């Protein structure tokens, strides 16, 4: 099995700092095509392609574009979410560092389709090179008339401001990101109203992931109908996967939806490093499920991932071999969330602290059956009652581990029968 590089086709082929190189490789042609179409026609094309959000949640992009387009406020914002803080993910960094103009082109097309004139590109503070590359690309695009007023000789105007984060995972959540752009701590808001109604500075705002924007020019160039033929029925197009951990070839790989996780690990990743045995694989990132090797034949698509009740579509595949203990991995994950929780709602703020104590009990073999029951119920409560996506998905690894590695939990309990 090999890759299908349609979104990453220019990555590694062009000099990311040269707009001329981008233009020589069909750059900004999709924008030109989009500007010759009406806004609704562009949204229709994205709808036919059935593009779904690549940040993890998988929300249909055309629906989001439509909700922004119907807002009558003259000030609207298109925001690109480059706050890729999910451990195990580095695909957005790869895109921003290797093909920055493609993201700007995608944002401009969405802005044209929805009637927005202003854009923000929020990049996490840890991504120094991506920040520099994108800021440079914005400057070049302005100079050459691909951002600003009268873009490509039309009446369309659109500009993008690059903003840096300052070390906060939760700012990848849309309302936390909005708060951060407004210069506040990244604490989420209660929905509704949704960002497309009241977002940045109370204005309609549409936020999508970097990879989602990078797909938009591809769809315009090849038509939605052709794009929809790639992948599976529920999940069209390709997905950028980030392979990391104990695997021979780590990196970003682009494959059509519908491939199996095993084929990605074996064919593209070259299998487990050092010929060791895979003990477990975490999908999506810290907020994703941990699955045992026998489940690796599952295919990569939104529908299949929904079974884990989590937004696990972000694209991380973290391979963990047999030298590692499940509970040590779980402890790292809960500590990560305990640190990153914004503290606004109780289930997430207090729940993660309690999860940490409970996992420590299993590590020290002090756990009882009652702890196992509490762990399961707490994880469920957090999943169901937390305010934002962070709180709702942080116990996913534990919920999945309790399902697929239950024996390991029982092994740590001295008298499981009692």
């Amino acid at each position: 099995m090999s890759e299908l590089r349609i979104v990453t086709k220019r990555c590694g082929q062009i000099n990311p700092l040269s707009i001329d190189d981008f233009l020589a490789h069909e750059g900004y042609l999709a924008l030109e095509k989009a500007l010759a179409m009406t806004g609704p026609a562009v949204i229709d094309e994205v709808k036919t392609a059935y593009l779904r959000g690549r940040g993890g949640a998988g929300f249909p992009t055309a629906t989001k574009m439509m909700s922004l387009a119907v807002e009558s406020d003259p000030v609207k914002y298109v925001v690109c979410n480059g706050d890729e803080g999910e451990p195990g993910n580095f695909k957005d960094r790869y895109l921003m560092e290797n093909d920055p103009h493609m993201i700007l082109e995608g944002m401009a097309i969405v802005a044209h389709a929805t009637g927005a004139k202003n854009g923000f590109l929020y990049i996490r503070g840890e991504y120094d090179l991506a920040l520099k590359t994108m800021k440079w690309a914005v400057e070049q695009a302005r100079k050459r008339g691909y951002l600003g007023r009268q873009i490509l000789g039309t009446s369309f105007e659109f500009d993008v401001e690059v903003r840096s984060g300052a070390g906060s995972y939760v700012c990848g959540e849309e309302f936390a990101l909005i708060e951060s752009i407004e210069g506040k701590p990244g604490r989420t808001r209660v929905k509704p109203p949704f960002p497309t109604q009241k977002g940045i500075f109370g204005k309609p705002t549409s936020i999508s992931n970097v990879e989602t924007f990078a797909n938009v020019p591809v769809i315009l160039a090849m038509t939605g109908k052709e794009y929809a033929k790639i992948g599976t029925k529920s999940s069209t197009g390709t997905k950028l996967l980030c392979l990391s951990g104990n695997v021979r070839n780590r990196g970003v790989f682009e494959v059509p939806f519908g491939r199996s996780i095993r084929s990605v690990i074996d064919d593209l990743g070259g299998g487990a490093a050092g010929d060791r045995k895979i003990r477990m694989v975490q999908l999506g990132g810290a907020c994703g499920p941990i699955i045992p090797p026998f489940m690796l034949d599952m295919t990569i698509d939104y529908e299949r991932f929904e079974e884990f009740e989590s937004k696990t579509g972000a694209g991380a595949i973290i391979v963990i071999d047999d030298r590692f203990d499940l509970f040590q991995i779980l402890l790292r994950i809960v500590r990560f969330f305990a640190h990153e929780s914004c503290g606004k709602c109780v289930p997430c703020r207090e729940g993660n602290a309690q999860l940490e104590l409970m996992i420590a009990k299993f590590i020290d073999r002090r756990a009882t059956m009652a702890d196992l029951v509490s762990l399961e119920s707490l994880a469920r409560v957090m999943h169901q009652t937390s305010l934002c996506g962070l709180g709702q998905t942080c116990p996913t690894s534990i919920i999945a581990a309790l399902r697929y590695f239950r024996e390991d939990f029982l092994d740590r309990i001295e008298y499981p029968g009692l």
Partner: protein
Amino acid sequence: MPLKDILGNHPRTPDSLIGILLELQAEKDRNCVTEEEAREIALHLGITESRVCAVLAFYSFFSTKPRGKHVIRVCKDVPCHVVDTFDVLRTVEDFLGVKAGETTANRKFTVETTSCLGCCDKGPAMRIDGDLYVDLTAERIRQILADIRG
């Protein structure tokens, strides 16, 4: 660059706060924002001092306590952990003689841990100020730190 100049480089609106703080902190040898600076920024932007403090407390890049000239941030998340065969953090701590969260006596280095740096394909990784160091080995870490120490 003095704070006054930094303030002048940003629009005088509350949403400039994070950008101002990032720029200010990077300018300083102590890698921190003081109470007086927080007050001055609040006055300039027309926001409360408590709001500036809330932002300083929320984001992990910021500190109100003096730190070393160089801040070393070692990744502690799973993708780096499973490829870390020699313990990156302990290597750094042993070399500098301080623990995570501490600053060396000569105020040259502060050691911290960080959430994922997004270079899991090249882990184990750490970030010193604005520079990323990947594919770490114990030998390489000692070399990097010795070079910065000068």
